[in-house]
């Protein structure tokens, strides 16, 4: 790592960088600059060209036109190897770590200098780097024992060990808890002080405002503006991103008349190793209500949703739907009662959609069996699909396009569209906006509110606390499978939610405040 140059030195400079994929102009003459000791946020909707730009900087793609200069010298990257040699390290959203190896082994893999995998010298050097940047690192911990945050630390360490002084992070906060995000930001600030240049790709505006010094907004492959973070606002950034003025408030619908629809009493779920995933949880969901479920990922949200949909065996407790206990019913019997679940797992296509099938075959996934006779009724299914495409404004060449070829946002719209079109009596939705850009996210909040106005009770499992507070009527917080508190969104704060998520109870918080 060279720190001989003056602090305000330009690390990366691109000039008219252009990349085409077939007829699609992914990056159109992008000019972009990264200076030492500053954090840059790269903002843009899905498909705006953020990843293309970063992939050119990290040597994955070769530009069609334009030039990249690193430390003032023009470079031609032919592989990621070339780019890291110039000090550019990319941290991908999906970690590329070997689960059965330790942190240290993962850090030096592919970069060892002699026959022995880990020498005391290498170990000292790794720990030295970790200390300098304030990275909490346990070199001997196996990756499979690590939390998501720890894995990310190893990824960062990997590129630092290879001498990177320019760090590119692709949506680093998407999978982190609020506490882990705080830690990550502390690390990034430390790097900035140490003279690194940091680029973070994101579409979470409040994070941009919190961490970055400069913001560059891409739209449709073009750089539509680079602004100083301290001189801009949420509104200006969102408008730049979308290209039109956007209403950034989530409507909060109040429904007066409420009757209990779903009553969960003492629900306990255990996995096959008899570990309690949900521990005597009780709650009531009313009609015309959005009940939020908050919690660190893995607190039992997934299991709770699956149990309600009849996909997870119930160990103890009862689930009453309109007075009837639905525990023990098959998932099809529960679907027939109008309880629908749209669960967006981390990879979007895992459950809920069949990747290689076309839109139409995905739309009929949950009601194909209702048509009379032994044959699948694809004719009426196609009409329904066309209606969903129109209603939800899905970008697709047609109803017979495979869903795996759609963009993430459109895939999610297909899933949610199918669930809402089935006129549900109870909507369970988990992470419906995960990985979506702003415009699509707000569209989905609108659809949820529209359902709410019809009186449909909605269980909304979310991760963005700001959204949960705005969208939901009440929020139930889970920690380790237990309910630590149910709060009214009108009467609570983000801090309280954070403490509940960490395992405090409402009583203990009150005592703290007293």
């Amino acid at each position, binding site marked *: 790592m060279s720190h001989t140059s003056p602090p305000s030195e330009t690390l990366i400079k691109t000039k008219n960088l252009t990349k085409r994929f077939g007829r699609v102009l992914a990056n159109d003459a992008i000019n972009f600059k990264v200076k030492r000791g500053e954090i840059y946020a790269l903002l843009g909707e899905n498909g705006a060209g953020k990843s293309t730009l970063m992939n050119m900087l990290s040597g994955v793609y070769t530009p069609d036109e334009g030039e990249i200069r690193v430390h003032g010298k023009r470079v031609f990257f032919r592989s990621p190897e070339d780019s890291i040699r110039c000090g550019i390290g990319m941290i991908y959203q999906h970690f590329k770590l070997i689960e059965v190896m330790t942190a240290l082994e993962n850090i030096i893999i592919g970069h060892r200098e002699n026959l022995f995998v880990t020498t005391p010298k290498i170990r000292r050097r790794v720990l030295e780097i970790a200390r300098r940047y304030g990275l909490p690192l346990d070199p001997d911990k196996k990756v499979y024992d690590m939390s998501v945050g720890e894995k990310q630390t190893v990824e960062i360490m990997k590129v630092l060990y290879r001498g990177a002084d320019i760090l590119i992070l692709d949506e680093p906060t998407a999978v982190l808890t609020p506490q882990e995000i705080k830690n990550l930001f502390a690390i990034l600030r430390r790097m900035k002080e140490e003279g690194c240049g940091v680029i973070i790709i994101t579409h979470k505006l409040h994070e941009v405002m919190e961490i970055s010094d400069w913001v560059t907004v891409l739209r449709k492959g073009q750089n539509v503006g680079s602004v100083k973070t301290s001189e801009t606002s949420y509104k200006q950034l969102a408008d730049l991103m979308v290209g039109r003025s956007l209403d950034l408030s989530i409507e909060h619908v109040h429904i007066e008349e409420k009757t209990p629809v779903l009553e969960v009493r003492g629900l306990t779920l255990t996995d096959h190793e008899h570990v309690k995933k949900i521990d005597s949880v009780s709650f009531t969901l009313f009609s015309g209500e959005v009940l939020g479920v908050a919690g660190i990922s893995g607190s039992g949200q997934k299991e709770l949703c699956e149990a309600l949909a009849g996909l997870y065996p119930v160990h103890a407790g009862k689930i009453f739907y309109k007075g009837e206990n639905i525990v023990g019913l098959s998932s099809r019997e529960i*679907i027939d009662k109008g309880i629908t679940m749209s669960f967006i797992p981390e990879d979007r296509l895992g459950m809920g959609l069949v990747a290689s099938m076309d839109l139409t075959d995905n739309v009929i996934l949950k009601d194909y069996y209702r048509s009379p006779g032994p044959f699948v009724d694809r004719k009426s299914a196609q009409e329904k699909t066309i209606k969903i495409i129109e209603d939800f404004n899905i970008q697709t060449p047609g109803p017979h396009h495979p869903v795996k070829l759609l963009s993430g946002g459109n895939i999610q719209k297909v899933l949610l569209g199918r669930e809402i079109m089935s006129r549900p009596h109870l909507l369970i939705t988990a992470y419906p906006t995960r990985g979506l850009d702003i415009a699509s996210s707000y569209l989905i909040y609108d659809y949820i509110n529209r359902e709410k106005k019809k009186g449909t009770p909605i269980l909304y499992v979310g991760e963005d606390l700001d959204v949960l507070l705005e969208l939901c009527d009440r929020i139930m917080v889970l920690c380790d499978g237990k309910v630590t508190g149910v709060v009214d969104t009108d009467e609570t704060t983000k801090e309280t939610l954070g403490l509940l998520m960490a395992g405090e109870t409402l009583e203990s918080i009150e005592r703290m405040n007293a």
Partner: protein
Amino acid sequence: MIQIVKKGETSKKKKILIHISALSFALLTASLFILIMGHSPLKVYLSMIQGAFGTSYRLSETIVKTIPLVITSLGIALAFRMKFWNIGAEGQIIMGAFGASWFALSYPHLPSWILLPLMALGGLIGGGLWALIPAFFRARFRTNETIFTLMLNYIALKWITYLQNGPWKDPGALGFPKIPNFHEHAVLPRLFGIHIGWLIALVLVALSALFINRTKKGYEIQVIGESENTARYAGINVPGTILTTIFLSGALCGLTGMIEASAINKTLSVEITGGVGYTAIITAWLANLKEPLIIVVSFLFAAMIQGSSYIQMAFQIPQSAAEILQGLILFFVLGSEFFIRYRIHIRRNPVKGVS
């Protein structure tokens, strides 16, 4: 430096082009081999074609070899659609033939119109039940079906060997271990000079295509093949569907056994399959599990087998040499699948980033 990159979709035109060039390379390589043996490659190839299609008798022989390949491929494709790797077709054919033979040997004097349907039933049930064993363990205990189905092939084979040497041994064969020949009532009739199996195969192709593409069960099979979790989420009875599908898959293979025993061998023997159970895995896969293509691929395969057995006689080439030709063709065609799925990037002199 060579880099291997996964391709997205490959266009139909390109796929055909890749397959054709693979075939050309195979023939080219085989030519060298034929030259070394002292024959003219062109002559050998022409007589291969002659051997497969040259006379109406040879053509009918090729069709007779196509029939078991088509029906077995259909059975295998059904299981493969669900990502159930049934490589036990060989055993299912044998057990189907066993079921059919039991009827043929037990009730030889029943009229054909009763005996043949009974034998077909015996074939369907024999193959179906044999496939049901690994399906049950997969559905119930998530065992790996690949090894399981493979091992059952050997058990089925040894079962016939036992019958041949023991309980079903033909007393009239002068001590030679063989099972008695079927009564003529137990032999499939002919239509246009070829046993009626060809008509059965064509009907089954149409039915299979209809089943997988149009019916609800077919849809469920495809969903399970993509993801069992998604299938559960959609309310599909996953273990139940696995059991029915694999029973059907095995039953189709079993029917092949019945046809071969009845129309070709006119008895049950250990050579009943002629390796069809394995060859059909290749044909099903090359046909991309699509029913109409299965006919085409199976026919070409049968032609290749028929043609190479002809050149054995015509050129006095040993059987092993003909098999080498077959192997070369297979090697190139299957190998070319790689180029359909992946692309190769060749980068010259990986220089340093700064220049």
